[in-house]
C-alpha cells in the first residue's frame, strides 16, 4: 500500500478524540442499527423523529440549569409522551395531527430557550451533536445502553416478529401487542436519549433509520437485517469520521450524510437487481 494512502487511513486515529469518537459511533451504531430494523418494520420512523425533536426543551433546560443532559432529556421525553397522548385523545384533532402539533411546539420551545440571553455557548451541540467531544461518561452510558438493548432485543425477538407479522392474531399466540409496542418505544427512547449526546437532536434519527433502510434492501430475513444494519451503521460512522477529518467538515453531519448515501446506494442496488431478475415485479407473490 502506498505510504500516502496508509497515512490517509491511519492519521485520523493518531488523535485520541478521534479514537473516542469512533468507539462512540461503534456503540451507537450497534444500538441504532439493531433497533432501527424494528423501528422500520413497525413503521415508527416518524415517531422516532418526533421523539428526538421533542427532547430538545429538556436538553436545553438541563444545559441552562446544569443538571445532566440524560436527566433533562428523559424529562423532556416524558413530557412529550404525555402531550402526544393527550393530543391524540382529542377526536377533532386526530393522532397524526396531534403528534405534529406537539412536536413542532416542543421543538419551537427548545429553540426559543436556546436563543435566550442566558443560554450557555455551544448550545448548537444539542442540535447537531459533538461526537468528537464525548466524555468517559458518554462512552459508559453508550456501552451500558448497548448491553441492555441487545439483551432486550434477543429476549423479545420472537415476540416482535409475531406482532409485526400479524398484530391481530398475536394474542392467540400468547403475545400481547400492547406490551411489545411499549417495550419497543421504551427501547427507542433509551437509544435516543443516549445517542443524542453524540449526534445531536437533528441528526440522531439518521443512525436509526438509514442503516436499517440499507439493510432492508439487502436481505429478507429479520436477523440478518439487524446484523447488516448494525454493520452499516459502524461502517458509515467510520467513513463519516474519515470525511470529517480529511475535509474538515462537521463530524455528526458527515456521519449522517454517509449513512444516508449508503441507504440510497443499497436501495438503488436492490431495485436494479430486482429489475434484472423480474423486470421490476413485486418482492412478494400475489395474495
Amino acid at each position, binding site marked *: 500500500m502506498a505510504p500516502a494512502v496508509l497515512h490517509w487511513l491511519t492519521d485520523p486515529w493518531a488523535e485520541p478524540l478521534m479514537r473516542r469518537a469512533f468507539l462512540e459511533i461503534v456503540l451507537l451504531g450497534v444500538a441504532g442499527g439493531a433497533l432501527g430494523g424494528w423501528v422500520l418494520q413497525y413503521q415508527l420512523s416518524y415517531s422516532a423523529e418526533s421523539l428526538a425533536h421533542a427532547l430538545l426543551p429538556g436538553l436545553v433546560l438541563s444545559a441552562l440549569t446544569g443538571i445532566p443532559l440524560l436527566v433533562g432529556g428523559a424529562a423532556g421525553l416524558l413530557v412529550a409522551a404525555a402531550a402526544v397522548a393527550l393530543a391524540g385523545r382529542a377526536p377533532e384533532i386526530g393522532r397524526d395531527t396531534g403528534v405534529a402539533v406537539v412536536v413542532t411546539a416542543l421543538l419551537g420551545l427548545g429553540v426559543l430557550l436556546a436563543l435566550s440571553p442566558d443560554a450557555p455557548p455551544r448550545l448548537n451541540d444539542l442540535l447537531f451533536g459533538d461526537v468528537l467531544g464525548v466524555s468517559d461518561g458518554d462512552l459508559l452510558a453508550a456501552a451500558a445502553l448497548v448491553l441492555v438493548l441487545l439483551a432486550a432485543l434477543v429476549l423479545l425477538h420472537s415476540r416482535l416478529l409475531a406482532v409485526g*407479522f400479524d398484530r391481530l392474531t398475536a394474542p392467540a399466540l400468547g403475545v400481547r401487542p400492547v406490551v411489545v409496542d411499549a417495550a419497543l418505544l421504551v427501547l427507542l427512547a433509551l437509544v435516543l436519549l443516549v445517542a443524542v449526546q453524540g449526534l445531536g437532536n437533528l441528526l440522531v434519527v439518521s443512525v436509526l433509520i438509514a442503516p436499517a433502510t440499507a439493510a432492508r434492501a439487502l436481505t429478507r430475513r429479520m436477523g440478518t437485517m439487524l446484523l447488516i444494519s448494525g454493520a452499516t451503521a459502524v461502517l458509515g460512522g467510520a467513513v463519516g469520521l474519515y470525511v470529517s477529518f480529511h475535509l474538515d467538515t462537521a463530524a455528526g453531519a458527515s456521519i449522517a450524510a454517509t449513512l444516508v448515501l449508503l441507504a440510497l446506494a443499497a436501495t438503488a442496488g436492490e431495485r436494479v437487481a430486482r429489475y434484472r431478475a423480474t423486470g421490476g415485479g413485486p418482492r412478494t407473490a400475489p395474495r
Partner: protein
Amino acid sequence: MTPLIRVEGLRVAYAPPPAAPALDGVEFTVDRGQRVAVLGPNGGGKTTLFRVLLGQLEPGAGTVEVARCAVVPQTERSRLEFPVSALDVAVMGAISRLPWWRRPGRTERVRALRALEAVGLGDHADVTFGELSGGQRQRVLIARALVQDAPVILLDEPFTGLDAVSMQQLEDLLAQLASEGRALLVATHDVEQARRWDRVLCLNRRQIADGGPEVLTRSVLEATYGTELVDIECAVHGHHELVLPPHHHDHEH
C-alpha cells in the same frame, strides 16, 4: 367422551340494548375428530364466535367450555413484505408454551420443522413467507397451529382465493388433522364443501341450524343467507347446486 367444545346459551353483544347482539342463542358441542363448517353471511357472527372460543371476547350470557384453541387466520391479515421465512412463522406457534423470559430455541425449531413437514412444506422452510403461493401460506399457518399443539383448530375462511389444486391439498390436510383426533371449526361460504364434512353450524346473528350435512336444506340456507341464494344446474351431471353470489366471498373485517 368429553366434547372438546361445549357452548350453551351463548350471547355476545358489542353494545348495550337496544342494539342487537352480535350472537344470540348459540348452543353446540364438538367432539374429537370432527370437521365443522361454520356457515353464515358476513357480519353473521362467525368471527365473533371464534373470538369467544379463543378467550378474546367475554360472552354476555351463556357458558363456553373449550379445550386449548389455535387459530389459522386469513393469510391477508399477515404482512407479506415482513422479512420472515416459513420456519420463522411456524416457530411463532411455540411462544405461547414458553415463559416470558425464554425465546424459542433449537427444540422449538425442530418441532416447527416437523410441523412444516406434516403439511408438506418441509423443503420450503427457508422460503420467505411472502414468496409462497396462497395455498402454501395457508399451510404454513396451519403448521404454526400444529406447533401450538392445540386439540382445537379454528380456521377463518382458509379456502378463499385458492386454486382447485391448492383447495384439494388443503382439504386432504384437514381430513388428516381430523383423523388424528383434532376438532376443526372452519368458517366458509362454500355450501357444497360443507356438505362433505361431519357437521354444519349455520349462524346469522343467532344459531339457524346445527347438525350433520343433511340440515343444509334450502330453507335453512335462506334463513342463514337471506334469499340471495342462486340455484345452478351442473351442465355435465345435471344436478343442482345452491351457491352464494360473489360478494359473500368478500372477507369480514
